[in-house]
Structure formats: structure tokens, C-alpha cells
């Protein structure tokens, strides 16, 4: 029966080619626009590490004086001071945890063959790799001992390994960062993420750094941050030593807490830490304040999905509504002109239900065709976005979910639009039309 209905629908579409084309075009444009903005929204807001996003937490400690105004909505600093970050990093708390910071170096091999180039680097603890599920192609993370003794060791990603060592197992080999020789201890599997969720300071959609070195090198090598440094009071810092001791916020901190009990314990630990620091007279603050947020909460807090994008998604759905109203109007006209024919079919024994279903199949076919064409329109739109801004290269794409969503939304929308016209037409009284034939 379904095949028969589809056949009937196809004939009906062919009978009024212009109107059918207009309807399909309207759906396609509506779906195309909606899917374009929805795809970007989907990519931006997608959980970057679904298996662990509720176990990875980032910290905000308010170590400012009461009455200090910061630039965040809840008046909490986005990052930590060096002394707090390192104190928590080396603390005897049971969980995996790491302070972390973005920097960069000139990379060279101390020979003439390779032209020196600039590369970003992340300073972290060895816990970073298991925390963020990083696998290694060769070698592994540095050892706890290497971390504690501030050894010049480096983990590089596959891409950098290809560039420096032609993709060979480079564990044990040397590479120069600025003028310091570093030993490669591990080659990390390429990390392709859309959102750089572990550090949202400098562009939420930047790529992860290609190199990782121990955070304990910050002090001995005087490594400055390539990210934001935010001071809130005048401290007259003139040396790197001063920066390390200062109240400037410039490091990120992540901790992995698997159970509610662990979260509770860690909160208690932070509470005690802040109270202790307050007692030492570091800041004047009556009630210690801190935030602990998981990956998705942190992305939400940082407004990773831009306002513009939310507005666009809203406007595109309104646009889709216009297209639906448009189709509904056209369908009404189209179905009603067909009333005489339906009258005859009813007289020959077709039930109301059959007429109703037949028309719903027809609008679903419209929706399906419109949805498929809509994907084409959306691809055009996404191509337009990519060519406007390089930042969107990875974001302005449709994944499988979105590809399936397009015809689904189109068909459901068309069925909604088709319900009323189909209902009207199935109530056709056969008698009237039989009389006038």
C-alpha cells in the first residue's frame, strides 16, 4: 500500500511541477539555513570527551581581596596564581591532577638541514595524559622522578614527530627548544578536537599544542605564559621571580574526580586550603570562595558557543517556520483543487483514513526531497562559512548526526504542515462532486 501511495504522490508532484518545485525549494532553503547554523552550533557545543566529561574538573580559586571586581559574571578569576597552582599540583590529594599553561619555543635540531620554526608547547604534569585519555604511539609520559627533578624531557605529537624525525620512533632522541636540548620521551597520538576545552583562554577552537613539557620547568627556565596574565592589584613586578610569587592569575588547573565522594573530599580540601591562606594574611576575604566545574559546565561558563551563533540558530528556526507556513498555504490550495477527484475515490470506496494517509505520504515525500536538497543547500552554506573564516574550518562541517537530522526535521516539519490540509481533503463529501461531474 505504501508503495502505491508513494507512486500516487509522485504522480501528484509531477502533475503540478511548478508548485511542487516551489514547495521543495522552500523546504530545502528552510532546512538548509537551519542546518547550516545548527551544524556549527552542534560542533561548538559538542561534548569533547563524552566518556569523562563529568569526571574532569577545573578550579577557580578566589584569592582576591573582598570588594575586588574582576571581569567575570560571578567575579571569580578564570585562572590560578603560580603558587596556588603548584601547591595543588604537588599536594598529597589522592586524585589525578595537573597545573597547566600554554607557552612556546623555537624548535630546531641544532643543524643546518632543518629551518628553525616556532611551535606552541603546553607545560603540564604527567597526570595530564591519562586524565585526558591521551594514547602514545611510541614511549610514554615522563616519570614522576623526571617531573620532580625538572628534567628537560618532551612529549611530541605525531605531526611534529613526522616533521622532525620522519615519523620514526624518536624516543630518546634530542630536539632543541630555544637553546636547551630536550629528550623525547614519548610520541602522542594525534589529538583532533574541535574545542580546546582544557584551555579556553586564547580562542576556544584552537588546536592542541604539539609539544608537552613538565610544568616544573617554569621556574628554572623562566618560561613565560603565552596565554593571559591577569593582575588585579598593583604589585610592581619587575622580575620573573616576582611573577612567580605574585597574585597574578596565569595557570589552569584540572583534577579528575570519579565519584561524588571524591568531589566532596576535594571541595573540603580546597575549603581548608583557602581558609589557611586567608589566615596567613595573603588576602582579606571573609568567606573563602571557589568554583569547581566539569568540562561541559566550564564550556558553558566560558560561552564557548558564541552569542551570534545562538541568535543565528534561533532566527533560522523562525525562518523554517516561515517556510512551513508557506508550504501549508500551498498544500491547502493544491489539495483542495483535487477535491473532485477525491470525491470520486471516496464514492468508489476509499475510506477517510486511506485518503488522509495517502496525503500524509505525499507531504512526507515532499519533506524527504526537500530535506535531501536542504543538505546540499547546507553544504553550500557551510562552504561559505569556511571560506569566510579559517577559524571555522573544523567547525563548519556536518557530522553523521546532522546529516540524518536534516531529512528527519524536514519530514516531521512537512507532516506537521500537511496534517490540516490532509484532514480537510479527507472530509470531502463524495455526493457534491459526483453531482457536478
Amino acid at each position, binding site marked *: 500500500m505504501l508503495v502505491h501511495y508513494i507512486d500516487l504522490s509522485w504522480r501528484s508532484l509531477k502533475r503540478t511541477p511548478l*508548485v511542487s518545485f*516551489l514547495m521543495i*525549494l*522552500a523546504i530545502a*532553503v*528552510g532546512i538548509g*539555513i537551519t542546518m*547550516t*547554523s545548527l551544524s556549527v552550533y552542534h560542533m561548538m557545543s559538542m561534548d569533547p570527551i563524552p566518556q569523562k566529561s563529568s569526571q574532569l574538573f577545573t578550579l577557580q580559586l578566589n584569592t582576591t581581596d573582598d570588594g575586588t571586581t574582576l571581569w567575570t559574571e560571578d567575579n571569580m578569576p578564570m585562572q590560578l596564581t603560580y603558587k596556588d597552582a603548584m601547591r595543588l599540583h604537588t599536594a598529597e590529594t589522592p586524585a589525578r591532577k595537573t597545573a597547566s599553561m600554554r607557552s612556546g*619555543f*623555537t624548535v*630546531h635540531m641544532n643543524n643546518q638541514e632543518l629551518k*628553525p*620554526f*616556532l611551535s606552541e608547547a603546553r607545560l603540564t604534569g604527567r597526570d595530564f595524559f591519562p586524565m585526558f585519555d591521551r594514547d602514545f604511539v611510541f614511549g610514554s609520559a615522563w616519570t614522576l622522578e623526571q617531573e620532580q627533578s625538572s628534567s628537560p624531557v618532551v612529549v611530541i605529537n605525531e605531526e611534529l614527530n613526522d616533521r622532525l624525525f620522519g615519523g620514526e620512533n624518536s624516543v630518546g632522541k634530542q630536539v*632543541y627548544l*630555544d*637553546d636547551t636540548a630536550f629528550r623525547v620521551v614519548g610520541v602522542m597520538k594525534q589529538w583532533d578536537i574541535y574545542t580546546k576545552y582544557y584551555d579556553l583562554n586564547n580562542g576556544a577552537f584552537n588546536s592542541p599544542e604539539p609539544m608537552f613539557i613538565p610544568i616544573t620547568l617554569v621556574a628554572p627556565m623562566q618560561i613565560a605564559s603565552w596565554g593571559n596574565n591577569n593582575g588585579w592589584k*598593583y604589585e*610592581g613586578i*619587575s*622580575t620573573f621571580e616576582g611573577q612567580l610569587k605574585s597574585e597574578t592569575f596565569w595557570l589552569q588547573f584540572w583534577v579528575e574526580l570519579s565519584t561524588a565522594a571524591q568531589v566532596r573530599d576535594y571541595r573540603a580540601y580546597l575549603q581548608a586550603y583557602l581558609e589557611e591562606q586567608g589566615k596567613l594574611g595573603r588576602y582579606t576575604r571573609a568567606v573563602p570562595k571557589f568554583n569547581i566545574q566539569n568540562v561541559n559546565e566550564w564550556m558553558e561558563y566560558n560561552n564557548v558557543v*558564541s*552569542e*551570534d551563533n*545562538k*541568535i*543565528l540558530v534561533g*532566527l*533560522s528556526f*523562525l*525562518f523554517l*517556520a*516561515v*517556510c512551513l*507556513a*508557506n508550504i*501549508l*498555504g*500551498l498544500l*491547502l*490550495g*493544491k489539495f*483542495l*483543487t483535487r477535491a473532485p477527484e477525491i470525491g470520486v475515490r471516496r464514492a468508489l470506496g476509499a475510506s477517510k483514513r486511506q485518503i488522509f494517509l495517502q496525503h500524509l505520504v505525499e507531504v512526507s515525500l515532499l519533506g524527504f526531497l526537500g530535506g535531501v536538497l536542504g543538505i546540499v543547500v547546507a553544504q553550500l*552554506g557551510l562552504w*561559505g*562559512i569556511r571560506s*569566510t*573564516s*579559517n*577559524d*571555522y574550518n573544523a567547525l563548519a562541517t556536518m557530522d553523521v548526526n546532522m546529516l540524518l537530522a536534516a531529512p528527519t526535521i524536514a519530514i516531521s516539519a512537512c507532516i506537521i504542515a500537511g496534517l*490540516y*490540509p490532509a484532514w*480537510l481533503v479527507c472530509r470531502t463529501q463524495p455526493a457534491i462532486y459526483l453531482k457536478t461531474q
Partner: protein
Amino acid sequence: MLEIKPIFNSLLRSKAGALMLLVQIALTTMIVSNASSIIFDRMEYLSQATGYPEAEIFSFSVMSFDKNLDLTQKFEETETMLRNIPGVKNAALFNAVPVSGSGSATGLGLQPASEGGQDARSAYYMADENALDTLGISLVEGRNIRPDEVIESQTREILPKIVLITKTLADELFPAGDALGQTIYFGDKPLEVIGITAKMMGPWLKDSRPDNVAIIPFVSASIFQKIIVRTEANQRTAIMRQIENLMLEDHNKRVITGLQGMDDEKQNYNAADTLMLRMLIVLIVLLLSVTALGIFGLTVFNINKRTKQIGTRRALGARKSSIISYFLVENVIICLTGTALGSISAILLGQGLLDLYSVPALNSLYIISTVLFIITISILSVLIPANKAANISPSIATRSI
């Protein structure tokens, strides 16, 4: 004469189609007026003047990895080398690049920072006496920095005694207009205002004070050094092409990155806004076309449905013009109701967006022009089918009954 009452009655007989058109027009009014308000706001933002001759300026960063190098002396030589390139007007070391989105800002106060008191948020460039010429910015009042006033140092222990500030910053700190010769504080260090410059933008066009800028005559050649070069506009591309080689010939233990013209820099900074602008334009153009097609399609249907009635009316003596005016009036009734409803929902949507996001308040001018535009479009899209209807021959009415 316009026969509004019979038209209205007949509309009530086929409510659904007219209602859909009305909904469509109302939604279109609502979306287009809000979108165009955002569009014009972004266009204004994107076309603002930065104060710089953008087409003449480019910048790049130098990462030096030679630990034994005397950076201060080397960069002296590099500057001279750059200035001697034919076509280069001037070049200077800077701590930050204008409109690049990265730089330094502080609160410049009327009292030392440790005493608190009033201050103004301001970006600052640290550079030597060539700064103004390199940026192509003119002085409004006072004098430029003298070479002997520039401090060259690797630490921040000794700071200069003087500063240049933009007119906007001067007016914020000294509303009386007597900024020249006054003292302002950079942290706890006093600086005398020796010159006031024309408007120029800081590193962030989206800052709360985008054109509060101070130029402090301090040069601290650093491992990661930014350099700005101003050239003849028509030679910029050629000079940019050879800059990396020239810089590496000058010293080979360095890496050149971020070579970019100022106009491109600005475009990068504003990429998201450009994108939003384009998407909104595409959205409203398509929306208006869909609505116009909808009106067109619906009128065609109405006419097909009423072919006999039209024929009968013509046979009974109606003029062609009255057939056209019938459809026009019918459409205008729907359109006026739709746009009226649309205007109300546009205001509501505008209010909602304003509460949630940082969009401009919706000016009623946008609603009015949208309404006029939609009425025009709808009249145009009804005219073609209505004309066709007027040509229906009266004989049709008599033929098939």
C-alpha cells in the same frame, strides 16, 4: 469603491490559506527587522576608522633563540636595516600590534596606583620616538618624544618620565581639556603628558575603551619581539615578500612569524562579525524571496480556484481593473494585518534578544522600513497573477456550466 466588505467576507470563507500568508508575513516582519538592525550595527562597527593608514603598515614577530646575543644592540641594527629598505618609510619595535587582538592594557591614574583613586582603562604601546611616524598618526597638541627621552632596558626598574596619549584618553582623564603638561601614573611611576595624538585604536576594537591609548617611550628588546613597518602603500606586498629573508640574513638564529598587513590583521580580528553579517544578509534575502514566492503561489491558486467567478464577474460587466484591484485589496488587507502583528512580535523579539544578548536596541525605523518593504514586495508579487486573472475571458463563465 474598493469593495472591502465583500473581499473581507470572502476571505473569511477560506480562512486557512489567508491565515498562513498572514503568519508568514508576520514572522517575516519580525525576523527581517531584527536581523537588519543587527546587520546595520555590525556594518557600522566593521567600517569604523582605526586612525591608521592600514594599507601602508605591516607587522611581524621575531623569536630569537640565541642566548649569547645582545638583543638591544642587535635590534638597533635590525631597525636600521629595515629603515634602509627602499620603499620603507619607518620601522620600530613595539610591545603590541594595533587591532591585532593581543597587547597590554592598564589603568592610568591621576594618583599613584598604590594610593588608589581615579584611573582610566587604557592600552599602551611601548616604542621609541619613531612610533608615531611608523603608525602614521599625527599629533594634535604638544610635541613628539625626543630620542634622549627613550629608555632602553631589559628590566622595568627605570621607566621613562614622559608619555603621549590619545585625545580620547586625554579627555577622559582631564575633562577640562588641559591634559598637556599634566602628570599621570603608570602603576606608581609618574609620567608627564608631553603630547596628545589624533584618534588611534588600541589592540582590541571590542574593548570598552577601544581608542584609549598611551605611547610610552620604553624599548625592551625581547626574545619574542614585535616589529611594525610602514611602507609606501604600493610597495608593501613586495617588501613583505622579502622580509623573512632579509631578517634571517641579518641574524640567522631567529624565527619570523605572524607576518601580516594591518588590514588583514583587522579582518582576522573581525572575522566572526563579518561571518555573522554575511549569514544574516543571506538569511533575510532568502526569507524575503520565500515570502514573495509564497504570496505569488497563493494568489495563483486563488485565481485558479475562482476562474469561473472571475469570468462571471467579467461577463456581468466588471472591468479588468476591478479584477486586479480585487486581488490587490485582498492582499493588502492580509499584508497590513500581518505586518501589524509582525511589528508587535518584532518589538517583543527585539526586547528578548536585548535581555539575553549584547545586541543593539531595536530602532522603530527598522520596523517601519521592513513593513514598507514587505508591502511593496507583496504588491509586486500579486500583480503578475492578478493581471493574468484580469485577462480571463468572460466566455469561460458561460462555457462550462
